[in-house]
């Protein structure tokens, strides 16, 4: 099953992820980005939405940039399953021959995209951080940090269709919705039978979230390998707490097991845009900076004056975190005390 004829392929599609009627934000981000790319090519944006009782959210997708929404609404697709979603999208894609297909690189998206690319015999570029159109060749150019220091690669898929790309949540900006936009809602029949589907979902457990997520945080203090060990990491946590910031990390402390995976910032982790980012012992490798470069104020503490992070930090401290962070903690505690006193006074009844 291959979509061979490149000339025949046209249009940009976005797979829309939802769970119990809640849209995944990354899908909306991709609709916005997709709109820009589609305009360069002069083609339509199609959202493909799969689930049960999802008609209500379909219209939202038009406001976020879709010209058409293909809707597969059926109890059998209540839960995401690789087989059902692959089957529905592949069938529709073979019929309509989209040129481009964008998918959010969430757990679900990363389960679906490669399966679909193999079904459609086409290429998929994972975890891109930039997307553009080569107008002359009418190709999507997907840029991603590459293995190795500071390496970027521009990936194309010249001879197979659709050109598939996955993008992590937060990488593309969420555009404002335009409630004046019009579009077409297209319902398709779901012909799947439960007995033909091999995988069953027995149970879904949602973890209780522990407060503000990294992506939503105003302030983030990130620890890199320079913190040295678990104790160093705990010190960074204390600093974060005093600042009212969330803790993040590069991939190495995560690999070391000092902090959980959901705190990883970068190409293969979270993408953040806080007001304040403080990097403690972070070198600033492209795979990490891809996820934090849009922070408003960047402060770096690093012993090595040549560390890449100083190329894009606003303020730099060339020094050892074992000396700087305790001093910062002390100073923050001191200044908190100072500002607390008048606040206490005000509490007294007049």
């Amino acid at each position, binding site marked *: 099953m291959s979509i061979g004829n490149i000339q025949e392929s046209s249009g940009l599609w976005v797979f829309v992820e939802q769970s119990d009627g809640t849209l995944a934000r990354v899908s909306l981000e991709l609709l916005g980005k997709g709109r820009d790319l589609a305009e360069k090519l002069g083609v339509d944006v199609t959202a493909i939405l799969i689930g049960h009782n999802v008609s209500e959210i379909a219209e939202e997708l038009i406001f976020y940039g879709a010209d058409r929404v293909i809707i597969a609404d059926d109890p059998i697709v209540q839960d995401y399953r*690789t087989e059902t979603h692959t089957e529905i999208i592949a069938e529709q894609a073979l019929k309509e021959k989209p040129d481009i297909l964008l998918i959010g690189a969430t757990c679900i998206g990363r389960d679906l995209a*490669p399966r679909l690319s193999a079904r459609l015999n086409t290429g998929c570029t*994972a975890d891109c951080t930039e997307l553009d159109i080569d107008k002359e060749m009418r190709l999507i150019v997907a840029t991603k940090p590459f293995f190795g220091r500071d390496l970027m690669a*521009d990936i194309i898929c010249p001879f197979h269709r659709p050109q598939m790309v996955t993008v992590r949540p937060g990488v593309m900006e969420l555009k404002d919705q335009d409630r004046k936009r019009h579009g077409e809602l297209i319902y398709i029949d779901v012909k799947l039978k439960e007995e033909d589907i091999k995988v069953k979902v027995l149970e879904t457990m949602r973890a209780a979230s522990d407060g503000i997520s990294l992506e939503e945080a105003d302030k983030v203090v990130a620890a890199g390998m320079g913190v040295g060990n678990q104790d160093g990491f705990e010190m960074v946590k204390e600093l974060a707490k005093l600042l009212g910031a969330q803790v993040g990390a590069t991939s190495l402390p995560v690999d070391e097991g000092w902090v959980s995976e959901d705190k990883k910032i970068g190409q293969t982790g979270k993408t953040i845009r806080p007001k304040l980012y403080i990097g403690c012992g972070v070198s600033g490798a492209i795979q990490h900076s891809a996820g934090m470069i849009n922070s408003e104020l960047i402060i770096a503490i690093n012993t090595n004056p040549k560390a890449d992070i100083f190329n894009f930090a606003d303020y730099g401290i060339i020094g050892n975190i074992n000396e700087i962070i305790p001093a910062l903690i002390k100073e923050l505690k001191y200044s908190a005390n100072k500002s607390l006193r008048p606040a206490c006074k005000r509490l007294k009844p007049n």
Partner: protein
Amino acid sequence: MNIVVCIKQVPETSDIGWDSKTGSLIREGVEGILNPNDKNALEAALQIRQQHGGVITALSMGPRQAEDALREALSMGVDKAILLNDRIFAGSDTLSTSYALSLAIKKISRFDLILCGKESWDAMTAHVGPQVSELLNLPQLTYATEITIHNNSVTIKQKLEDGFKILTSSLPALITVEKEINQPQIPSMESIMNAYRNKEVQVWTNEDLGADKTHFGLKGSPTQSRKVYIKKVHKGKVIILEGKPDEIARNLVQILKQKGLV
């Protein structure tokens, strides 16, 4: 229970070069290690064999030196090791790699379970598991943190961003494992020596697979890197805060206060 575990050799460090003409990594001369996440897949296979018996085959596609990764798998206790090695495989993207692996698995013939790591640490695409599943028309169960097998079915606990799902499927199936699933054993010196001295790594080429040659390598891969380049991110000029640690701290807290951040 016959199990195939797909394992990959990855460069030990990320300080490596690339070929500016083809955009491929230069893997020669770089120390290779067994992809850490694939050790979890091997360990999971060993634990399943302990309960249910059967034969474990470790399978890898890569350059000749990837044999070391397979020897490591042998030292951990797998029964057989197969290396897919052919010049024409070089430069394959995930889909062509998955194509070669799927043909090899078909040739191994009887299998109940295929295990992969969730992702490799150099490519980190997490593509190969799902793509192999598709090419073999198998149910795919991704991101497993627990695997239980009973009769002819398998149940996994799947890790997601915001929780877990319990999924079940008939066998044969393909599972990709998270690193939390287990603590891989470290093979003894003796078993490492044994893996090098007394065990065999079979090497299969393109001919053994009877594959369509046009599916491999740079030409056969749907995705191509058009350009690989160094990108140093530069913003404006950094202001360096100088002095003793407590001076710096005072200075910085002052700046944060001015900006309303503390």
